């Protein structure tokens, strides 16, 4: 992203020459990317493009094979533990225990993240995602969409400055999708940086500041969203993914 300012502190995430391989398969083949503070980056790409791998590496769940990643100025390899409280992760897997209630799940993650006044905070985030009536129900009894809402609440608990979302709209109805984007920007953290992957070009283009298309582990297209309309994005998506094949 080019318009985040020139000082080093302006970047929430700086990735250079990032690779990740699984045996002989190269999932990420030399990614270079910078995301400015408070900006929203949309990553599009076909299945197997490396979107989930990139999110997993950025969220410190997976180690990169090579390259350098700085999150909030901290090196991912040496400071993973310091980086984690600054990040909230939502994926199509909810990271929730089905045998525990919604409250117990959030209590567990609050304690792991040292959330101050966690009882109050749990009620706050649960209200934000519209799950207050089901707070004391076991997660296993909730619908897929409700679990995904709760997963968003889990990720917001510790007020992360950076949100990493891997296909966060999975299982959500239209109302919940609107709620998701509202809740990400609603809190006092106006400088929250959001990186999300999606297959929904229209919705993605609506909410992002910058667009990246990933294919076969490489960035094949990048542009500010202002410079794009939906037809242009569709065209770029088709062209760049076909060219990569």
């Amino acid at each position, binding site marked *: 992203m080019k318009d985040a300012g020139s000082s080093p502190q302006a970047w929430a995430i700086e990735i250079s020459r990032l690779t990740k391989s699984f045996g002989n398969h190269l999932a990420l083949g030399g990614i270079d990317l910078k995301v400015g503070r408070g900006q929203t980056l949309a990553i599009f790409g076909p299945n197997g493009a490396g979107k989930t791998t990139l999110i*997993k590496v950025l*969220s*410190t*769940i*997976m*180690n990169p094979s090579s390259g350098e990643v700085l999150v909030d100025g901290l090196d991912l390899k040496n400071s993973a*533990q*310091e980086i*984690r*409280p600054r*990040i909230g*992760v939502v*994926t199509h*897997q*909810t*990271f*929730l*225990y*089905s*045998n*525990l209630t919604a409250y*117990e799940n959030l209590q*567990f*993650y609050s*304690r*792991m*993240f*040292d959330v101050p006044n966690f009882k109050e905070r749990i009620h706050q985030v649960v209200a934000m995602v519209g799950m207050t009536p089901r707070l004391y129900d*076991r997660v296993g009894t909730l619908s897929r969409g409700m679990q995904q809402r709760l997963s968003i609440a*889990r990720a917001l608990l510790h007020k992360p400055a950076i949100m990493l979302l891997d296909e966060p709209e999975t299982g959500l109805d239209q109302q919940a999708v609107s709620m998701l984007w509202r809740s990400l920007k609603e809190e006092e953290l106006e400088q929250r940086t959001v990186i999300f992957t999606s297959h929904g070009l229209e919705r993605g283009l609506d909410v992002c500041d910058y667009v990246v298309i990933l294919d076969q582990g490489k960035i094949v297209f990048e542009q500010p969203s202002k410079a794009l309309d939906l037809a242009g994005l569709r065209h770029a998506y088709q062209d760049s993914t076909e060219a990569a094949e």
Partner: protein
Amino acid sequence: MRFWRKAFVIVWKDIISEIRTKETISSVLVFAILVIVIFNFAFGANQETMISVAPGILWVTFAFAGVLSLNRSFIVEKEEYCLEGLMACPVSREVIYVGKMLGSLLFMLFIEAIVLPIFALLFNLAVLSPQLITVTFLTTLGFVAVGTLFSALAVNTKARELVLPILFLPIVAPIIICAVNASGLALAGEPWSSLSSWLQIIVAFDIIFLVASFLVFTFVIEE
């Protein structure tokens, strides 16, 4: 303190989860009691035979019951896709190891606390001696220390239920052999001094494998 607080949060979560479902506890208990009952019938009522085979029966029961419970330890995390959630928490991988290890230790000690009196009743042996309780505790600690590591290793393989016992049982064989010998002496009412050489080996095993597993866990869990 922060390290231990986080580890106990993981233990708390595992205990609540198990209390809710009783999935592992019921199957492990049924298995352990069945083994003891079958052996009891197989060896009849001859008290001399009973005393000589009892330690072996006891540790075969505990070892296989332990494998069953350790298998579940990380499979539950994996099946619910929560392992990645744990790994995204701002704690070192060692906290995850200690939390899961303490959870498994409490679980196994609970199973043993139920199985031992049943064993005493069926085999007509005095099992509640401080010597036997010490041997049981120390052996279980070493068993669980290694088992937690191998459980994390096996969870990323396809035939995880088969992989764990194949990898794990040869490693814990020495401590099980020591436990069988020490338990035999304890059941025979021998004093602490005669058990001390076995206990020393068990303690050495505990220390070596606790430290080694603690150090290696990070590499095992991260791919």
